[in-house]
């Protein structure tokens, strides 16, 4: 398959709105993790989007949720490449392929809390327009002025990574010419309580690959990318690996076999060798099991010298949005010629054999592997390259 051309991208996370704010935070090694607005009976840091999100136009108010307003912010940053794409491609040839894990759960849990308290559902609550996994798709199509095939991938923490692979296949098959891909997720009580029930949350900001790491920090945010059949690519996605562990519903394979297979597949589909990879944006959630398994997998596939950073220490784990946000960070590394330092308290785990740079590194980063792994044993690895 031909490489996927990424002609524009946008991002929202605890680091800010848009590429510039993200670059500033990443360059400074400044985390976005900290206090959050979710009312919990346990302590944890989270990556909340603190800037106000734009309100939807009046005609789309029935669909207005935090998720939909996040989508609007992402589309605003993508405005210029989208305008060019609309001039080039028929609206029905531009797909909307997004990923989410929580969909409208944040809106539903607030409504349900009121219902349980005896107050009934809020008058403006609408399950079909605000909760379902597909609800935000119609908002994105209308705001973007496109009308191609659209669906939501929901494979937990790999959701948005899957959308790049779908777009690549549909373009190769001649079914579409371009697509808005990526994903988004919001903080919600249910998710944070659920990860806490698994004893998977760190009470402090997460510390991926550190010796005393003790879990995840949840984040919210999203990233969209415009991918096209032809055009001026900012970066290419040369190969994508999609595999399953077939091992456990919520724990990674201890040797990271599924993760290794995903990285091998991405390299093979991209026609590249392990020595071609300059940097890994790791899944790196900060749990003991995940980081150990992933480090083993990276070592097996790429050796020990490829600088590996988990940017979840900056944004938190943004679940269904993580793969797209980290794809955007991979693109930034290639375009800017530097990678952010691996941040987090404590020493690097001596059992992690891969290179974890704790200072910002500059250089030629021409090819980046970005990993995402999920509940269900679902793995996605994206090989991102300089055009």
């Amino acid at each position: 398959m031909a490489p996927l051309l990424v002609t524009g991208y946008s991002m929202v996370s605890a680091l800010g709105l848009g590429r510039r704010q993200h670059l500033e935070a990443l360059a400074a090694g400044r985390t976005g993790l900290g206090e959050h607005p979710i009312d919990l009976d346990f302590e944890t840091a989270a990556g909340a989007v603190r800037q106000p999100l734009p309100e939807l136009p009046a005609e789309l108010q029935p669909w207005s949720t935090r998720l939909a307003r996040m989508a609007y912010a992402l589309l605003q940053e993508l405005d210029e490449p989208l305008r060019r794409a609309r001039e080039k491609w028929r609206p029905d040839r531009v797909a909307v392929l997004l990923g989410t894990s929580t969909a409208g759960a944040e809106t539903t849990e607030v409504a349900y809390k009121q219902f349980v308290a005896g107050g009934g559902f809020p008058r403006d609550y609408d399950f079909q327009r605000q909760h379902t996994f597909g609800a935000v798709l119609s908002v994105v199509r209308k705001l973007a002025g496109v009308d191609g095939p659209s669906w939501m991938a929901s494979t937990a923490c790999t959701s948005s990574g899957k959308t790049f692979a779908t777009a690549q296949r549909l373009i190769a098959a001649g079914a579409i010419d371009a697509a808005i891909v990526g994903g988004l997720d919001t903080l919600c009580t249910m998710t944070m309580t659920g990860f806490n029930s698994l004893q998977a949350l760190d009470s402090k900001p997460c510390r991926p690959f550190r010796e005393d790491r003790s879990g995840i920090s949840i984040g919210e945010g999203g990233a969209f990318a415009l991918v096209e059949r032809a055009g001026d690519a900012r970066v290419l996605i040369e190969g994508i690996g999609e595999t399953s562990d077939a091992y456990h519903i919520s724990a990674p394979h201890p040797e990271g076999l599924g993760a290794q297979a995903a990285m091998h597949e991405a390299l093979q589909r991209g026609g590249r060798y392990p020595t071609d990879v300059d940097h890994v944006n790791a899944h790196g959630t900060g749990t003991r099991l995940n980081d150990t398994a992933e480090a083993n997998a990276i070592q097996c596939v790429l050796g020990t010298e490829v600088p590996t950073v988990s940017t979840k220490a900056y944004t938190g784990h943004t679940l269904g949005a993580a793969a797209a946000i980290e794809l955007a960070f991979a693109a930034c590394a290639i375009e800017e010629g530097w990678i952010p330092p691996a941040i987090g308290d404590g020493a690097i785990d001596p059992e992690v054999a891969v290179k974890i740079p704790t200072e910002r590194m500059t250089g030629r980063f021409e090819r980046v592997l970005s990993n995402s792994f999920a509940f269900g044993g679902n793995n996605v690895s994206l090989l991102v390259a300089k055009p």
Partner: protein
Amino acid sequence: MSPLQVNVAGVGLWMPQFPNAAAWAQRQPLAEGEPIKPTGEAFSRVNRRRASQMGRAIGDAVAEAMAQAGVDPRTTPVIVGSSIGEASAMIGLLDQMWRAQEPMSPAVFTVSVHNAASGLLSISMKNKGYTTSIAADYDTPAAALLEGIGLIATGHDAVCCVCADEESPRSLLEHAPHWDMLAGAVVLTKTNASDAGVQLTVHTSGDADVAGSDVAAKFTHNPQVGIIDLIDAVQRKANGMLRLDRGKGRGYLAQLAS
């Protein structure tokens, strides 16, 4: 969108009273008046216990479709489509938090994700390849077929698309028509000149001339009813254009040729 043609090599379904496609084809409910629970045929015993009722219905439909198509479950990609996913698990978690104010069950949380069924399927079938879970409201059947067609167009020999939605969550959909649970699966394969099966293409617009199935009214509002209409049309060896969304989605149609 350019039409892309594939072959339908196997079908499977689960609906209350009709536990498989063969029973549906003959309109023979196995236990009249008695709701039959899905067994989760494609799952290992331990994962059968973990799966929701919808997950088990998906497991039954997938097992039947794959057996009919004669494809290998260890290597055949599976696309699970569902509009609301594991909504009852989510409501259970919300009740634990807000109503009972109990600690959340980690076991329920791990299978409350939309891809619980696809994950349990890959574990049970020892499939280490591609799997996904998608949603597009009433367009989910069309989306699953398009995702499957994309896989076949780029090198896979066979793909299983399964679409399911559990019973509508009455508390959250107070004023909307109620629907009952259903699951339907089709195995798509590359088209060959020698294929005796049904050829399928998906279109974004057009006029339908193939009628939908005669499912009971309690299923007609299920967002996945289009997959049952497709399975029914395949069983009838219908030729022509069939709506995949019962007029509630964006107008996708399947063109069938036997």
